[in-house]
């Protein structure tokens, strides 16, 4: 009884592919996106900002006279939904994906995108698969490159002697974490004083901090979700770890963490994915105006939404003739790198088997409940 089911599935895939080819030549350019509008990982700010970019373009006359139709699907952080909505988008006839910010998208749909030959300019890539696919190129640095950059800042610029790492390893990302740590060792010639990849997402954080204390760590990297970072810092404060530099990644670089962690008396640093969103810099101006028009909160994630939509528009503009999945793929693969002041390295899709174009980050420090930029220049890692 298995075989007919497989045939039906294959036929459905074929029909999906055909439907997609047909609708590419309509009046509008359909761009798809998968994000968490409900559930555990809510990324509405990303898609609201991306949507505003496309609306602005449409108001200004569209792309070579054609309007963009931006279709956002909510996957609620649920892998089954992630798979389902990707197929719905392809059925709808989208020619490419932009501004996606789902934490399961790359793992669940990476193979499907390859099979359906569609490209995704992702706003926020968080899993290793986002940086290992020929069809996906995130605009953000991503947690792994960011780990290396933040460690490098601690050892080279803060002068930390005993750098320690505590990581909550998400399924499938252990190799990428080890590579990121190894890359720091290669770049600096230093070894971690302590590395613990067994941190759990639940429970009291004090035992880990006691280990760090015993190992006399003077800089401690931790990669928690936003919800776990406050208990982590509070426990560190309770244990009196005021002379340690706490290094965090982009998910912790938010206003609510700044507010909640203020007054704890700790040295807290975080890596930003882009030009720090809290900086009132010229680089951020166009993005900030877009976020305001979108009536969405200004966050690091929304910068990803803005950049991925902006880059997609730039690439679509270069297409002469019909905008189809094939022509978008070709344009992305042959595009010239785009320099943008919010990024430290030019962004390019290109024809590689994997894509991690963004290799630069700035560092922000928590001061009086506010994030302050402490590295005026981007820390750019040499390409691996």
């Amino acid at each position, binding site marked *: 009884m298995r075989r007919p089911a497989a045939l039906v599935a294959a036929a459905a895939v074929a029909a999906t592919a055909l439907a997609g080819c047909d609708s590419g030549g309509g009046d509008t350019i359909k761009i798809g996106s998968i994000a968490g509008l*409900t*559930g*555990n*990982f*809510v990324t509405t700010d990303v898609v609201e900002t991306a949507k505003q970019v496309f609306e602005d373009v449409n108001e200004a006359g569209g792309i070579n006279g054609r309007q963009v139709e931006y279709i956002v699907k909510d996957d609620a952080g649920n892998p089954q939904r992630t798979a389902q909505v990707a197929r719905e988008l392809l059925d709808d006839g989208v020619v490419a994906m932009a501004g996606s910010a789902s934490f399961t998208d790359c793992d669940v749909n990476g193979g499907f995108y390859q099979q359906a030959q569609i490209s995704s300019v992702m706003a926020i890539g968080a899993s290793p698969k986002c940086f290992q696919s020929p069809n996906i190129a995130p605009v953000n640095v991503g947690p792994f490159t960011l780990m290396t950059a933040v460690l490098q800042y601690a050892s080279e610029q803060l002068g930390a002697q005993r750098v320690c790492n505590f990581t909550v390893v998400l399924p499938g990302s252990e190799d990428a974490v080890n590579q990121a740590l190894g890359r720091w060792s290669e770049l600096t010639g230093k070894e971690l004083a302590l590395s*613990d*990849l*067994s941190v*759990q*997402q*639940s*429970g*009291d*954080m*004090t*035992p*880990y901090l*006691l*280990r760090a*204390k*015993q190992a006399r760590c003077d800089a401690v990297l931790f990669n*928690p*979700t*936003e*919800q*776990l*970072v*406050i*208990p982590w810092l*509070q*426990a560190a404060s*309770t*244990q*009196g770890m005021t002379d340690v530099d706490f290094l965090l990644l982009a998910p912790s670089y*938010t206003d*609510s*963490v700044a*507010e*909640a962690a203020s007054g704890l008396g700790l040295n807290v640093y975080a890596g930003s994915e882009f030009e720090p969103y809290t900086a009132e810099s010229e680089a951020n101006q166009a993005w900030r105006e877009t976020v305001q028009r979108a009536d969405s909160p200004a966050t690091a994630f929304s910068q990803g939404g803005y950049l991925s939509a902006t880059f997609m528009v730039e690439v679509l503009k270069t297409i002469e003739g019909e905008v189809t999945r094939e022509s978008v793929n070709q344009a992305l693969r042959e595009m010239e790198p785009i320099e943008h002041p919010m990024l430290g390295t030019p962004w390019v899709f290109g024809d590689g088997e994997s894509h991690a174009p963004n290799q630069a980050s700035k560092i922000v420090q928590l001061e009086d409940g506010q994030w302050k930029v402490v590295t005026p220049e981007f820390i750019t890692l040499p390409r691996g």
Partner: protein
Amino acid sequence: MLELSAAIAGLVTGGAYALMGLSILLTYRLVAVVNFAQAAVGAFGAFAMVLLVEQGWPLWLAVLAGLGVGALVHALVGLVMVRWFSGAGEGIKTAVTVAMYTSFIALGLRLFGAQHPHRFPKPFDTPAFTLGNVVVTWMAVITLALAGLFAIVPVLLLRHTRIGVLLRALAERPQTAELIGIPVPRLAMAVWAITGAASALAIMIIAGQFASDFGSQALLITPALAAALVGAFRSFPLTLVGGMALGILQSVASTWSEIQEYRGVLPFVAILVVLVWSRRKERWDELA
């Protein structure tokens, strides 16, 4: 002496597990339902409290309101149980609470926002004393004291008061109790409301130490059920010991590099050992 430090640190987690485990045991002993949704109910109360504090309410008033929310939500669960499932077996009742648990998580994430953390007020977060290189806060001391209270008060209540006798009758023979004139539905609803408030109090106290999102708080149900299982769903003191032991075990395990990756599994290993030990005199070849 990292192990000793970790063990001391683990007392806090253990106290938290025990507190929640005792709330679950209380519900089970009084209305005979193993309630998988109980930590989620407590989280409703705790998050209501946090939201009100963020609105500028005084802490004591917000805490009272949070306890009220916990009581109300649990009373609703109780209403469903009393109305439609009073004649059903334990298995069915438990299955219903599992369904409620998943609904509550979805609802809680929607209501209390999954995106940004809330900072739970920790009024007693000042160091009480330092023991074995670990700074122990007043919060930890209060958690432990409260866990002790949760373990002793129900025992005294059930054994030595008239209401305790009525409650035992209600849990063990609800229909007989009704026939002899005990107002069963009203009493049961009161029990549901009180255990709901107790869970809310437990979560309010321990929330600040754990990941501060609704889902993580509701997940405390797992170690809490494990603690209740150590107490064989009967004994309050053993549940207290079970919760404390699990917390300490998990904490100490994080210091041993050989097993730290498996520390999440340790509570279940501990439960297996307890179960095998407690059933050691039973005959294993008997038909069920």
